[in-house]
């Protein structure tokens, strides 16, 4: 019997701390699989951010750096400019990337910094117990929008891929989702392509992954996947926003 599926080498063999059913775990595996399949674990430096995935430096088998909240793209820039031949990625939540880290992601993108960004959009701040994120959907109840997000009061959710793709820097930007098998497979291709874009020296790549936070959504893991499909995908359409025709 042949092994058709097992944990990738680039994912350290220890339990992860995420809540039951949280898709952070899937996203981690996809990144690790890409490192395995592209055989780049040994020359990759990953940058963890601040969010539920703050300590994924324990989980990824490549060299890792833990960055301050929102600053992973700046840290990654420092790394890439020091080690231009290495592969550098950040792994950031939507609070991290789209709120406090707005300037850093916009400018890394604008510079066309040759790094890969894995962007977990779960429409909420997970780690700090469920506050509104810039990506929180209208009417969504969070601990800081107890009466639901209101466009007038809190603004409309930000679509990061759409915004960044107005810049000239990004070589490749795609939004994928982790809510079912088909989409996980597509997401995997997107993640892999993002790394390939970097390997080819094409510049900035970013993959947004629509994810769940069962705990702070107050839903069970299955309901959470449904919410991604039924509520999130409408506002956050999947697809390639930059680099559609890019071959790598």
């Amino acid at each position, binding site marked *: 019997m042949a092994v058709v599926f097992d944990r990738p080498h680039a994912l350290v063999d220890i339990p992860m701390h995420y809540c039951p059913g949280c898709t952070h775990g899937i996203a981690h595996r996809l990144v690790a699989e890409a490192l395995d399949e592209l055989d780049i674990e040994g020359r990759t*430096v990953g940058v963890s951010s601040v969010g539920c995935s703050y300590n994924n430096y324990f989980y990824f088998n490549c060299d890792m750096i833990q960055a301050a909240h929102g600053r992973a793209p700046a840290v990654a820039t420092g790394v890439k400019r*020091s*080690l231009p031949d290495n592969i550098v990625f950040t792994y950031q939540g939507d609070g991290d990337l789209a709120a406090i880290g707005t300037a850093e992601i916009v*400018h890394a993108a604008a510079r066309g910094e040759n790094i890969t960004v894995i962007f977990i959009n779960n429409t909420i701040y997970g780690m700090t117990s469920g506050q509104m994120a810039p990506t929180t959907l209208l009417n969504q109840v969070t601990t800081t929008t107890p009466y639901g997000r209101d466009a007038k009061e809190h603004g409309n959710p930000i679509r990061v891929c759409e915004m960044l793709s107005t810049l000239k820097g990004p070589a490749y930007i795609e939004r994928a989702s982790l809510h079912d098998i088909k989409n996980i497979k597509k997401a995997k291709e997107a993640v892999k392509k993002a790394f390939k874009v970097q390997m080819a020296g094409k510049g900035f790549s970013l993959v947004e992954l629509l994810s769940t936070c069962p705990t702070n959504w107050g839903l069970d893991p299955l309901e959470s996947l449904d919410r991604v499909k039924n509520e999130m995908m409408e506002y956050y359409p999947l697809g390639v926003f930059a680099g559609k025709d890019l071959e790598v």
Partner: protein
Amino acid sequence: MGERLLMKGNEVIAEAAIRAGCRHYFGYPITPQTEIAHYMAKKMPKVGGVFLQAESEVSAINMVYGAASTGKRVMTSSSSPGISLKQEGISYASGAQLPAVIVNIMRGGPGLGGIQPSQSDYFQATKGGGHGDYHLIVLAPSSVQELYELTVDAFNLADQYRMVAMILGDGVLGQMMEVVNFRDEEPIVKADKSWAASGHGMKREHNTVTSIHLDPAVLEQWNIALQDKYKTISEKEQRFELYKCDDAEIIIVAYGSVARIAKNVVQVAREEGIKVGLLRPITLWPFPTKAFEQVIDKPNAFLTVEMSSGQMLEDVMLAVKGRKPVHFTGRMGGMIPKVDDIMAKIREIRAD
């Protein structure tokens, strides 16, 4: 002997960094230290180095954090408000035990303040403007020549102790031109960088650079290790200059460009027949308590002179420990103390 050039303090810092092997500079413009960036922008591409203008000071310090994590010699520079913005990043770099050099060419504050020279970020630099129990090595040059030498030393100390070293200067030092004598070769400390995150090439366990330790027992151990290191540094790295202290009845304590003015005062006072000396801290952290132990017996009083409201004053009092009176005079907001004013204070102290 090496080159002899008339250069601006800020440019000397940049040149010294490059000579010390720094090939990565990340910064954001701010007066009165923009020339550091201008110099780097011109020179770095020529020596195969990286000059990158960050989108902000916050980004700059985090780029430094990234480059330092890979084991490279890296530097950033700014002035007071910009340094305030870097406090989170400085605390992170200190927590993660990363070597890096940060230059603060101080200007008048608080807030947007002014752009004239000041020393009012002393507390921020020496006590920790960021959160948590950490220290920076803080070097306070007082001439262009010393800017050069201490900048080189800063890189060495940073590497040696895996921590952030800060050059604390002011607008006078950054903007003034003096002749600087460059060495032919710099004394560069080769430090172990096996901890760096630079790709393990499948040859070792993966390295991790981090400042987070959620188990408080672990974080405490980490902190204890930091404190032990600080203790070692405090024992080994105190630097200071004693100028005519042997017979001094009053010892002025001053650093940076104020120490230059204080030297004038020592001359003027001695011409008047008043025996004044100068104790010039070169390391502000560790504060040179040893210097005070050397001179404590002789003088009747100490006089701290600062371009701030009396910040180093506290360290002087902690060093003197009530054994002699400690006086203070200073200017603020970009005003520079005058020889006459300091002389007046000295006469006042003697009259007491």
